[in-house]
């Protein structure tokens, strides 16, 4: 006890001693610099407006202060011969050496015309000066992206970068709970699921690192403030927090990420707290989503009845049945004649309103800075009651002691996505307009037609019982998924000396996903169910936890000696991700207010037990990067990476990757003469090998599976189900890039061009093995693909008149790439075969993929068609030998067109006049093909017995000999309700489109306005954005079959206090 006390006492005393020493030192320093002066002054921008929060620093002593709201500052203790540095974000820093006796220094800061990214390139691991960089990368500021789309940063990125492609999901449309799927420079993988591999898990939640990348193996690596993250995190984060997004494309830019780099990297940096007085920023964004139903052209009540009649639905060879069917026809016709013509499409849709409030506080003086961000974002979708709400909180703290900078960021987020209880939009598109939605009293009808007994008809209704999907909206349905995320990231940066830095980071992020779906027994999906009464109603619940721990250490050294500039970065990182989840499904909840899992009757026949999922991955990566620049003319860089992952086979746990590049600044050469055309030209070339490890974590380990439902006299058995390939490797992609950056006509035109090729030659594919080995297949590195293409981007500041304050910048970008399969495993042949049998004609209603060496992965395979024979109304096909036939045969399929477009690009215009901003963006695509599935499904593959059809069923189909029509005749007969058209070239159509993705009008209120001053606002700004304004396309398809697409308006307001 006394001993402890002594020790305590000792430490206490030593602390005291230390403190007093510090105090003494402080006093000393004050007295030492007693002859120093105090400098005051004002910092203004070019227009003369004061810049609050600008940093004023004595370069030598590092004494720092910041300007007040009126732009004035006071810096004490400055040595009379010091140099002051004035800086502010978005402005060029100014260095002012003090003249003798000078006490007042007023400074005008010029806006920096170069963006942040052009000064240094941040690849998420380290920053390097742009002069020492030879790769292909593109950086966009958060403001730029927000201008394009204030609600979805990924959509904005896809609109302005030609290499980022967003896969449009025609089923899920503008569902707010649908995460975007993107890829950079094309897909390197085959869309083949590893069949026969029991360890391929379905994603638990999109917040789960591993499953997020598994569900889209082409997804680029996403880095948020230096740590790997998921698409869900980026999708749900507050757009106002984003400082910049950098897209890293080629080997030189990405190879430091080693085995994760092959799909490209997207680096997101958030805003850092600004020093100075406490600053509050508030932005609000209101948005309205309007459903876009213009692509639908459905039959009305009488029209569909006529189409049904023509298809023979109301006639029968059996006279007895014929009478019954006629009774039904007359009944339905009667209803239609009486005026029942329900427009079902409008039933489940709404105008969705959304708000996004974002509030941030930042400030701090000297060593300590802090930032607090709060965000509430609720967006309603265009389907009724579908929404996604996000709550985010983040707190930044940074502290600088001498040359060590410590910063910590805590984030807390909650996202809840409600799915609509109204069901799929498809159900409404399919519904017959001759059914009434509500009865006379205004109640929604559940069963749309009385049965034959009630009507005293002689047989069942053609098509059976029809239920009303909108009835479900009256029930207490639960269908949501939510995610709670918590994270803490810590960075320590130690500037050992000028140019030499050591950084360490540690991140811990956890997601707690949860989803529930409850459908009571009264739900229409149970109407036709054959389950017994006590099993009607279902409740499903999923709970999970996934955690990622990341650690990094990194040292970088930059030295400039005369003409030589050297940059060295060396570092290592580790990552461990773990995820687990439990899924429970129960049945038998008869009453809709018993909406609790525990109130269910039992597991039912389909669920029988809870399921859980667990996975763990570990990976390591070390890198060394060297870059040398001579005289701003020649640059050479080389990066080596060594990655290890638990996902690799036991014989290949560690993988080496490397990449390098050279760059030549032609305009800095002596022989280059100054001229009026070319002012700057830089040629870049890079080459390197990167890897992809977006595959199931357990393919390379041999695992035994215990069977719990079966026992052998009460003892459990374990069975080996896979042959683990100990030689399994990461997929590797050879990236080659040739780039040219040009500055023409004195900055009037800036051009960037990149030529690239990405060759992947060891794709992981299943290999069929002789079953006598005991296994059907195993995974091996067997496939190859090659993507090559180019990207061009041109930006031109057409008007740059700072006197009259007019700026107009126009940008244009386009890209093209081709995709070719270079190698396949024999097992793929089996998939091709299964996709090409004439046996099951039902599955051949769409062109199933076929993978052939030399063809693209997106090639559309269909049987060539000569069109409709005017004499018979039947389709004429071409066989492989060139002969003509009426019979469709899967073996006659040929490559018809590639879904991958020849050109994809965008155009943008940004116009500023005084305080007005006008911005618009459009994207276009040309040279691609698409199988018009919705057209063939609505016009020819229609099931007239049970669903509505397109108007063209009546108007455009072949009717009598001599008709030259593009759609074949309706087949009439006993089964004619279901018409069948198999994959044919007739429906392969050109998919060219022009999409006006965004139009923004903004106004910055001048700070000298009376009300602005009165409200103590500092830079209020209003912005109105319209997204998906218009679309011009060569192909007419029903867009958003399960969830409609939306046009949206946003109205944003932001201000500082």
């Amino acid at each position: 006890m006394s001993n402890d006390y002594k020790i305590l006492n000792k430490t206490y005393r030593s602390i005291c001693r230390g403190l007093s020493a510090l105090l003494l030192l402080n006093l000393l320093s004050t007295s030492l610099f007693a002859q120093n002066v105090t400098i005051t002054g004002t910092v203004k921008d070019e227009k003369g407006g004061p810049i609050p929060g600008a940093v004023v620093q004595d370069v030598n002593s590092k004494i720092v202060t910041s300007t007040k709201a009126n732009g004035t500052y006071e810096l004490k203790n400055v040595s009379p011969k010091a140099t002051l540095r004035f800086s502010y974000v978005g402005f060029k820093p100014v260095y002012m050496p003090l003249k003798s006796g000078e006490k007042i220094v007023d400074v005008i800061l010029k806006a920096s015309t170069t963006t942040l990214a052009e000064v240094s390139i941040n690849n998420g691991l380290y920053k390097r000066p742009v002069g020492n960089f030879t790769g292909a990368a593109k950086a966009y500021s958060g403001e730029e992206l927000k201008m394009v789309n204030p609600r979805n940063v990924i959509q904005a990125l896809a609109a302005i970068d030609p290499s980022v492609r967003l896969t449009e999901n025609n089923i899920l449309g503008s569902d707010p709970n649908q995460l975007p799927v993107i890829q950079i420079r094309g897909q390197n993988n085959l869309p083949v699921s590893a069949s026969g591999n029991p360890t391929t898990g379905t994603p638990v939640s999109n917040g789960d690192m591993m499953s997020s990348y598994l569900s889209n193996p082409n997804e680029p690596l996403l880095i948020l403030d230096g740590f790997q993250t998921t698409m869900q995190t980026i999708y749900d984060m507050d757009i106002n927090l984003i400082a910049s997004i950098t897209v890293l494309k080629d080997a030189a830019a990405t190879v430091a990420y080693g085995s994760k780099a092959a799909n490209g990297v997207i680096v997101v940096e958030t805003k850092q707290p600004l020093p100075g007085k406490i600053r509050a920023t508030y932005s609000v964004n209101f948005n309205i989503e309007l459903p876009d139903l213009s692509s639908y052209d459905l039959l009305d009540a009488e029209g569909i009845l006529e189409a049904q009649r023509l298809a023979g639905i109301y006639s029968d060879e059996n006279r007895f049945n014929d009478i019954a069917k006629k009774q039904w026809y007359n009944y339905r016709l009667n209803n239609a004649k009486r005026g029942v013509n329900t427009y079902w499409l409008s039933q489940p849709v709404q105008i969705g309103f959304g708000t996004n409030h974002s509030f941030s506080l930042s400030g701090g003086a000297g060593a300590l800075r802090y930032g607090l961000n709060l965000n509430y974002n609720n967006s309603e979708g265009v389907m009724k009651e579908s929404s996604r709400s996000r709550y985010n909180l983040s707190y930044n703290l940074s502290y600088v002691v001498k040359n060590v900078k410590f910063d910590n960021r805590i984030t807390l987020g909650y996202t809840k996505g409600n799915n609509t209880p109204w069901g799929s939009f498809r159900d409404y598109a399919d519904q017959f307009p001759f059914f009434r939605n509500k009865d006379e009293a205004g109640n929604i009808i559940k069963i749309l037609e009385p049965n034959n007994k009630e009507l005293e008809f002689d047989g069942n209704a053609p098509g059976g019982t029809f239920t009303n999907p909108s009835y479900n909206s009256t029930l207490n349905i639960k269908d949501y998924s939510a995610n709670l995320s918590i994270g803490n990231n810590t960075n320590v940066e130690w500037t050992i000396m000028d140019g030499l830095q050591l950084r360490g980071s540690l991140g811990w992020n956890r997601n707690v996903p949860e989803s529930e779906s409850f459908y009571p027994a009264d739900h229409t999906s149970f109407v036709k169910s054959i389950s017994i009464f006590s099993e009607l109603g279902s409740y499903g619940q999923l709970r999970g936890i996934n955690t990622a721990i990341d650690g990094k250490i990194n040292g970088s050294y930059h030295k400039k000696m005369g003409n030589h500039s050297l940059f060295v970065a060396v570092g290592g990182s580790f990552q461990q991700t773990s995820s687990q989840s439990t899924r429970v499904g129960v049945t038998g909840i008869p009453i809709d207010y018993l909406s609790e899992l525990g109130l269910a009757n039992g597991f039912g026949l389909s669920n029988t037990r809870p399921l859980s999922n667990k996975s763990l991955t570990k990976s390591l990566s070390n890198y060394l990067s060297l870059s040398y620049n001579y005289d701003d003319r020649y640059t050479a860089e080389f990066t080596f990476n060594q990655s290890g992952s638990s996902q690799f086979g036991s014989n290949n746990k560690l993988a080496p990757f490397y990449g390098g590049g050279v760059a030549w600044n032609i305009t800095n050469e002596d022989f280059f003469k100054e001229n009026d055309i070319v002012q700057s030209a830089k040629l870049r070339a890079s080459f390197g090998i990167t890897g992809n490890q977006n595959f199931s974590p357990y393919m390379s380990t041999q695992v035994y599976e215990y069977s719990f439902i079966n026992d052998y006299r009460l003892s459990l058995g374990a069975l080996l189900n896979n042959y683990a390939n100990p030689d399994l490797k990461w997929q590797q992609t050879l990236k080659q890039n040739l780039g040219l950056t040009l500055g023409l006509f004195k900055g009037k035109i800036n051009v960037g061009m990149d030529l690239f090729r990405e060759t992947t030659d060891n794709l992981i594919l299943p290999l069929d093995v002789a079953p006598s080995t005991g296994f059907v297949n195993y995974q091996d590195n067997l496939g190859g693909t090659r993507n090559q293409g180019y990207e061009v981007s041109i930006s031109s500041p057409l008007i740059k008149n700072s006197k009259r304050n007019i700026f107009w910048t126009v940008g244009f970008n386009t890209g093209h790439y081709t995709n070719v399969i270079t190698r396949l495993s024999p097992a793929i042949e089996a998939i091709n075969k299964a996709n090409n049998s004439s046996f099951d004609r039902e599955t051949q209603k769409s062109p199933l993929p076929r993978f052939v060496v030399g063809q693209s992965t997106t090639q559309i395979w269909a049987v060539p068609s000569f069109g409709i024979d005017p004499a018979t109304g039947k389709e004429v096909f071409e066989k492989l030998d060139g002969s003509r036939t009426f019979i469709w045969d899967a073996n006659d399929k040929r490559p018809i067109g590639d879904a991958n477009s020849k050109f994809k690009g965008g155009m943008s215009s940004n116009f500023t006049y005084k305080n007005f901003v006008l911005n618009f963006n459009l994207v276009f695509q040309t040279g691609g093909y698409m199988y018009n599935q919705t057209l063939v499904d609505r016009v020819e593959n229609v099931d007239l017995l049970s669903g509505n059809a397109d108007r063209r069923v009546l108007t455009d189909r072949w009717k009598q000999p001599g008709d030259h029509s593009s759609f074949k005749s309706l087949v009439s007969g006993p089964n004619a309700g279901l018409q069948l058209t198999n994959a044919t070239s007739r429906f392969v159509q050109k998919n060219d489109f022009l999409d006006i993705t965004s139009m923004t009008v903004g106004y910055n209120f001048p700070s000298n306005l009376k009300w602005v001053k009165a409200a103590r606002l500092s830079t209020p700004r209003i912005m109105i954005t319209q997204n998906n304004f218009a679309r011009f396309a060569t192909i007419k398809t029903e867009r958003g079959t399960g969830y409609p697409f939306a046009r949206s308006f946003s109205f944003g307001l932001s201000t500082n206090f």
Partner: protein
Amino acid sequence: MKSFKIKILTVVGGLLLLFSASCKKWVSDTSEPLQVDESLVFSTEKGFQDVLTGVYLQMGDSTLYGRDLSMGVLSLLGRSYDQNIETSIGPLFYESARYNLQGADLKKYAAEVWIKMYQSIANLNNLLVNIEAKKSIFTGNNYNRYKGETLALRAYLHFDLLRLFTMAPAAGTSSGPGIPYIKTISPGKAAISTIDEVMGMCIEDLKTAESLLSPTDVTNYRINNWAVKGMLARLYLYKGDHENAKLCANSVIESNKFLLAKTNADLFFTNENLFNLFLYQSQSFQKSVFADQAKLGLTAVNQTELYVKVNGAVADWRKSFVDPTTGNGTGAPFMPKKFYPFASKPSMPMVRLTEMYYIAAECALKDVDAVKATALLDTVRVHRNLPKYPIAGLTLENLGIEIKNEYQKEFIAEGQMFFYYKRKNMPFATLPFTKVPVDGNASYLFVKPE
């Protein structure tokens, strides 16, 4: 300053080196909780038992001995049923009744059998690979027991694959192509051995197993020393080596380790069998054959034909048939009572003691020793509540028929009859209880998937 820089870089570099050296180990160490890495499974003695149990469980799959290699497909081929042989029993059963082994469904079924059997074999081989390295962890006689059981099961499965997929030696040459005999675990395709070679390797595995398994262990829900001897007898007989078959069968009979039943309490006579496979899902398997849609069984007329006529008797315990739904012995009893109530005996006989008597009798017949053969049959008859044959030595011709009849009665709905017919290469026209005509290209050969 310069030296300071160098120091820093050296330290960082050194750290990185250490980092990469230790990372391989760190990266490799990821365990999976729901599925268990093989190194963990084979770290304990129990793990070996679990893997072996896993194979027994796999053998109890409905495709294998759980249903179709016993009371399902093979019993239809073995003509155990004549009731309800219609298309409504499903294409697989109907093709079996017609001996249409080239039929789409039977072909698909054959592929499943092939895959599942070889998967079990791969599991056994993986156990054998690991057992040598872990020899020290076993207590008592367990190393020998596990290894012996594994080898015996490997031979058992290969022998049945051989009997299903290749010609019987009686039907022609046994030097033709057989099946691959897999002794290692690798993704490479194994060579096909000849029928003779496969039988040789089976015998080799069985003999090793026999030397490893203790003769005092008579646990009959696992393969044991006596079941191995029984297997050898069965194999030698199939091969046509009557001398060895007789030796093996007699060694089992004379050991008195297993005794013939004295009551009809259990019509599977579970306790007298050398090896029973426990079936975890026997109830649903039995239902799917005898109740539900299929309702297979033997009609009253043919029950009498089989059990009563010639040298039979109504009192034969085995002539117990019931209605599958009620369990009553009156009305329309079609199903052998041994299955009722469903899953009351959740196991399937794999090697029976009585088969040893029949093998010995068949060998005695070969030796032209009618008295011995009759006596052997009589021993079984007495324990099935049948009188002895009226004479001590039946004629050789009658003995052959009697052995066949006894096989039929004893192994009804157990699948063994298919192998009997195949071994004897019986013409399809002579098969009993033919309700639907046999397919034009009927054969005893299942179609190999590779």
